[in-house]
């Protein structure tokens, strides 16, 4: 398994490097005539958004499965996808304004697409806070319910530019927008690279979470074994003293 993981890491590294070269080089993607080179931010911004949406949908599926079957593996998958999805969504929220400043002349506007993306990010950040700071046994259940509600926001974010008048550009695919085929090729290449990268990060994070739960269980078992049984003297306490205390 370690060898497979190492091979995938190397292949993904090469793919990411090639995708970045294609995104930045005029030999890969042509320079956009109106915006110039700043348009190349699009090759990181859009694939990051798509990857985040896919991770949130996997989180949704895993949460539903957890609610039905109470499977700990599904709970871990949901947690991991939400965490990595938040990382990608953070990149979307930062690279968007960096693109908007030279193109629109402003960093941010309370436009429907931007605002709904921020709300989506806040929902999943609150999901992670719930997972991190709640020690109740009901936490996975509550988190799964929150994730199901959060996932409903994803289609709203995606289709918001169809239903509302916004400043945000039209979708690249399926929304009436058009794109040069070479640009589309570089965009899809970057999406593939980011998806492979996200998959590997989720895999590592899944193994880490599983290990963390095993260690927590081992700690709990040890503390149970250290706990004196009813009537038994505590460690270091002479038996006679224990009897008199009874």
């Amino acid at each position, binding site marked *: 398994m370690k060898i497979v993981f190492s091979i995938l890491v190397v292949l993904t590294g090469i793919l990411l490097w090639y995708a*970045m070269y294609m995104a*930045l*080089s*005029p030999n890969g993607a042509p*320079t956009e005539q109106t915006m*110039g*080179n*700043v348009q*190349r*931010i699009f090759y*990181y*911004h859009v694939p*990051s958004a798509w990857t985040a949406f896919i991770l949130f949908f996997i989180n949704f599926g895993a949460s539903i499965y957890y609610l039905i079957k109470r499977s700990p593996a599904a709970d871990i998958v949901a947690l991991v996808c939400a965490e990595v999805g938040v*990382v990608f969504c*953070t*990149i979307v929220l*930062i*690279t968007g304004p*960096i*693109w908007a*400043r*030279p193109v629109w002349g402003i960093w941010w506007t309370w436009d429907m697409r931007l605002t709904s993306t921020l709300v989506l990010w806040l929902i999943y950040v609150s999901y992670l806070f719930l997972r991190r700071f709640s020690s109740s046994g009901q936490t996975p259940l509550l988190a799964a319910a929150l994730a199901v509600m959060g996932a409903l926001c994803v289609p709203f974010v995606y289709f918001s530019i169809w239903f509302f008048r916004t400043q945000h550009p039209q979708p690249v695919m399926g929304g009436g927008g058009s794109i040069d085929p070479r640009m589309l090729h570089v965009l899809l290449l970057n999406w593939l690279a980011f998806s492979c*990268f996200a998959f590997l*990060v989720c895999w*590592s*994070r899944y193994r*880490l979470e599983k*290990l*963390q739960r095993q*260690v927590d269980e*081992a*700690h709990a078992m*040890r503390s149970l074994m250290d706990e004196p049984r009813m009537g038994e003297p505590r460690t270091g306490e002479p038996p006679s003293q224990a009897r008199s205390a009874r």
Partner: protein
Amino acid sequence: MTTNPYLFAAYAVTWIIHIVYLSTIVSRYARLKREIDELKK
């Protein structure tokens, strides 16, 4: 290609975020390894 500061900032921020996140995973893994070693003793 002339370097656009906004383009550079966007790509740099993306990789900084990924590297910071990956380093937190690595440090958590190292901490867990230490805990496992202590549990084994």
